[in-house]
């Protein structure tokens, strides 16, 4: 019995130390495959999630960054949020609701209901009157809260290019010229086999 529990303690420690938790994403995204073998950095990542229909969501891995970003955004869009609403925002794995609806969205108590609402929302990417779009502002303020932030785009394989182009253009407009595209791994097909 003792050796077994020894092994178990070892395993447990291993899993506890290496684990990064799966973030629950509101939309299912099947990334395209690529032969690129670069791994995504383990921290300071701003991931931009783009689903098939072009809805855009975002997530940050540090709660402090999330908090700072939300405060700047709510100042900009003059949205008053209570402490409870803020803590809900920070605890949610992914965000992506237009700022106009943010207060109403965060008033919903149950996380499950919020997720359902989130699925139908998405961050608006269209700029109004030449101003920065909400999407751009999120990225700008997230970058301000943590200058080391790297941007990773995770988009579905069948997303039309027009949407990707828009996202890339907006990043370009705010001088974010380096980013990662998240892909899944595939093996290189050799010429001989075909």
């Amino acid at each position, binding site marked *: 019995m003792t050796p077994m529990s020894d092994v178990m303690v070892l395993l*447990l420690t291993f899993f506890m130390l290496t684990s990064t938790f799966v973030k629950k994403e509101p939309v299912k995204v099947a990334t395209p495959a690529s032969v690129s073998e670069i*791994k995504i950095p383990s921290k300071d990542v701003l991931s931009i999630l783009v689903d098939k229909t072009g809805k855009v969501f975002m997530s940050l891995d540090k709660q402090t960054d999330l908090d700072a970003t939300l405060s700047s955004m709510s100042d900009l869009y003059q949205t008053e949020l209570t402490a409870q609403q803020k803590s809900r925002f920070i605890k949610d794995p992914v965000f992506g609701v237009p700022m106009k609806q943010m207060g109403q969205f965060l008033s919903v108590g149950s996380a499950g209901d919020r997720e359902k609402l989130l699925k139908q929302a998405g961050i608006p990417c269209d700029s109004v009157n030449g101003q920065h779009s909400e999407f751009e502002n999120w990225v700008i303020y997230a970058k301000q809260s943590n200058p080391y932030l790297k941007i990773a785009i995770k988009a579905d394989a069948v997303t*039309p*290019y027009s949407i990707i182009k828009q996202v890339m253009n907006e990043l370009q407009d705010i001088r974010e010229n380096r980013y990662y595209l*998240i892909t899944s791994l595939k093996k*290189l097909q050799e010429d001989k086999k075909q």
Partner: protein
Amino acid sequence: MSTGKKSKSKQKKINVRVDFTPMVDMMMLLITFFMLCTTLSKPQTMEISVPSNDKSIKDNDRSQVKASQAVTILLDANDKIYYFEGIPNYTDPHFLKETSYGANGIRAILKRKNVFAVQQKIDLDQKKLLRKINDAQYSKMLSDIKSAKQTPTVIIKATDQATYKNLVDALDEMQICSIGKYVIDVIKASDKQLITNLKNGTGGQPQQ
């Protein structure tokens, strides 16, 4: 598990064996939890950098590509891929060529165009395999090969109907064919005209 020497052991030694079963049970539970909730493998990424959109940078500060040396790849709907080399020719409908994704299509073409770098990379890989050079040297030499003068420049243009997968596949080919100089550009009406020309089998100038 001695009961201590000081205790006057007149009474019977009690066998103190702690039952570990509940602990092991809990441990099992925790392990299961962590195993189910973790992502051990981090997702793969490809790193891209795009030219700045900044209007303040003048055109002559940007690195210019000689049109005659460039290969342009057009990505269209339904996984169609076309390519042409050099300056577009609108009078010849078969100037633009249709090809396919994968080893026998666009990859073969790009490898042929980039034969020098591909060959050098194979040599380099061999060296690395034989442990003649370390990783840092390898990546430096690889980037030297990729940015060498003879390598072609590839311009990737995608229509709005193309999918994200098409773009990633095209970027993938750049990596496989060791092409260091490539750019994702916006598709223009003149490029679409080439596709129309090919489909109709007639020449036609783009409407300005």
